[in-house]
């Protein structure tokens, strides 16, 4: 039963190996995804040339010129290769729709989406985790039912519907917040992003809350809680012990949070007319703007993979058993 005391060198080597494996896995994932999206875009109807020209009559020479410009007459593999070799050198191409370099198009919107997502995440975490703990501690009582009822309701409401409701209620009817725009300065930004962030946070918070509550209930049922209480520990101390143990499933839910946020931000940015990555992606998908769609999906997948990695590292910090198992291997 005793586990070998791992030396520091061994631990860091194991962690390094683990990291390398995870990064390799992520790269593979991204590669698969890029091929997938590229082939989907390749195979589907819709023609960039047409998109650029609209309903106007097409002049065959113009068409040929544009096709050549975007390498559209090359075979699939070559097109993909062109894209891939560019991507490796950090050149993700230029947007077909705007003519802007993809990297610039993304970076100019990244800030807003990042702020939105981070604000939503913080809002969700600071409200949902305490509420989940409260509900877990009050398991089966009125408080629990009320809190869980709210969470279920928010989880069940589509983000866009919630967003519209918020817009009409808080921005229009109560006039507390601006209805659109991104604001300037820190407070202005905050003022403008609070409503969309809250919309995102409500749905996300519902998930986090349910998981926190379940984890707390499960831990409270453990023998060690009974033993801690038997030794005369006050409820608050017992709760801190419980929380440490409940943190692992909660961490998992936080890892999934980014995936949720990335998906929902597309909808919420639409509702609140925010010029973020979600809007960019939606437009790019409609326009069949291959370089933008490619770069964006990969960026988002990479972000999610990164967050998964962070969660795994957090496990190592939170769960000594996993730490030792890993180094023992």
């Amino acid at each position: 039963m005793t586990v070998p005391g791992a030396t520091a060198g061994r631990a860091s080597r194991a962690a390094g190996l683990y990291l390398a494996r995870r990064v390799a896995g992520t790269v593979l994932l991204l590669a698969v995804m890029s091929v997938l999206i590229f082939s989907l875009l390749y195979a589907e109807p819709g023609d960039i040339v047409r998109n650029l020209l609209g309903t106007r009559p097409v002049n065959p020479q113009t068409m040929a010129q544009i096709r050549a410009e975007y390498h559209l007459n090359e075979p699939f593999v070559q097109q993909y290769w062109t894209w891939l070799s560019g991507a490796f050198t950090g050149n993700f191409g230029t947007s077909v729709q705007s003519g802007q370099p993809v990297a610039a198009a993304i970076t100019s919107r990244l800030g807003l989406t990042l702020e939105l997502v981070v604000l939503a995440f913080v809002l969700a975490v600071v409200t949902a985790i305490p509420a989940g703990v409260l509900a877990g501690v009050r398991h089966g009582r009125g408080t629990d039912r009320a809190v869980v009822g709210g969470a279920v309701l928010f989880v069940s409401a589509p983000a866009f519907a919630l967003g519209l409701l918020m817009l009409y209620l808080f921005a229009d009817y109560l006039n507390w917040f601006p209805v659109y725009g991104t604001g300037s300065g820190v407070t202005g930004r905050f003022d403008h992003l609070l409503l969309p962030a809250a919309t995102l946070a409500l749905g996300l918070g519902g998930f986090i809350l349910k998981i926190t509550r379940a984890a707390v209930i499960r831990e409270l049922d453990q023998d060690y809680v009974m033993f801690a209480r038997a030794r005369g520990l006050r409820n608050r101390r017992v709760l801190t012990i419980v929380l440490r143990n409940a943190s692992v499933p909660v961490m998992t839910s936080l890892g999934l949070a980014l995936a949720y946020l990335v998906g929902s931000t597309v909808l919420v940015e639409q509702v609140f007319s925010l010029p973020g990555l979600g809007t960019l992606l939606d437009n790019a998908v409609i326009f069949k703007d291959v370089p933008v769609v490619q770069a964006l999906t990969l960026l988002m997948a990479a972000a999610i993979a990164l967050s998964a990695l962070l969660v795994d590292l957090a496990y190592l910090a939170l769960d000594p058993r996993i730490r030792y198992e890993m180094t023992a291997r």
Partner: protein
Amino acid sequence: QSGSAGSSGSSGSAGKPTGKPIKQLTIGLPGSLSNLYPGQEAGILNYYVAALVMEGLVYVDPNGITRPAVASSWTRPDAQTYVYNIRPDAKFSDGSPVTVDDVLYSFQMARDAKASPGIASYYGAVKTITQTGKNQITVKLSTPSESFEWVPSAPGALFIAPKAFWQKNKGQIGTPQALLEGTGPYRVTSFAPDSHVRLEPTGTWWGGKPPVDAIQINFIANDSARYLAEKSGAIQMSFNVPLDAVQQWQTLPGNRVLSVPDRSWAGLIFNTKVAPTSDVHVRRAIAHCIDRAAVVKELLHGQGQVATAMSTPEQFAGVYTPQQASAKLAAIPQLGFSLAQAKAELAKSSVPHGFSTTLEYPNTGPQLGTAALSLAANLKKIGITLQVKEVTISQWLANLSAPKQLLRYMWYFNTTPDPAELVSYLLASSPPNLAGYVNKQVGTLLGQASVELDAAKRATLIIEAQKAAAADLPYLPLWWGRSLTSFSDHVGVKNYSSYIFESPWASNLYSAA
């Protein structure tokens, strides 16, 4: 039907002019712009913004008449030649004068499919563009083309910028990294794609100082948010008010919605090459099934006009007033709404018991969808199953030029005041038109029209051509659209017309109280 400029259903009108400039005008734009240069992104809204910043050699005045812009004058010595004299006092926003070199280079860029994919195809008929004098440029065409008149305009296909600017920012014009540079009354001071554009006067425009000190155009993709923004007073003007929300906008206090024909045409394309729509009886049966008057009245909320032809009444500017044009166009034979007649036509056809097909409409045109649903409901009664499908704009565009379907929508925004713009696109048989329709007589009439220099005679020829085609019904015109613009009562507007936003339109605004 009112064809002229004017407000429709607005709850109030602008107050009296105050005579003071408007300090700042904030405008809500539906959708978003990712590039400001219409040569790259050729959306109608891109034109609206570009019209304030860049100019062509000529422009279209609010009445649809071509007027000189950067050119001080122009002549058409023969059907294949246009000669332009450059205005000596034209200056770019940085104060440097416009040279012939700049204009020639701008032409070159406009014709280059890489630099200007959105507009290059307008120059198909151009043979040469050369400097023929100190301040003179001559364009020679390979075939006579009446419609070239509008090409070197900003609402058409020429955006004059300094040569150095073109060269410096090749392929990047219109992005936040290379904002537009032109001779217009405004320059772009900031642009964030999908977010906003800010415009301020240049002070170098040949037309003088415009009455608005700063224009902030915000892109508000969500219509509800845009409505709430207008309601809260955060924006004072809004383009393209959604048709189905017009009542909502009209009833906003301190606000009015002005409606004007936008020279758009919505209609159905029949595939005349494939059965059963190759059968004229089938086409006629379908035509009898749509209640165009009801569609315009109810689904478009009256914001449109039942189309009797492809040319819009506003495109006969200089020849007919829109009312006169409407009357002339109404003389083209029409098929009215009648399910009984539809049944009778179908009975005569090769598919007396009906058939089924699909009709796709772009997600950007919900009114096309509702009209299609209404058509489908009626077709069902005569045995034809029409499945209505919403597709992305890009998919719709792709299917538009690669016809497989029996029935397609055409939704076209005329950019020029040329009555033949859409007619020649849809009826000329080479290159093959969208319906696959060939009619010698129509071809002959169109051929004559293209070399006819007299505007009135030309107009007659164009109407004749449509009359000749109407009997075969290769296309079913549905409606001519209107666009709705919302103004705060503090913003007055003069010369409001179909063409207003294609000229430097801000100069028509005034502060009202």
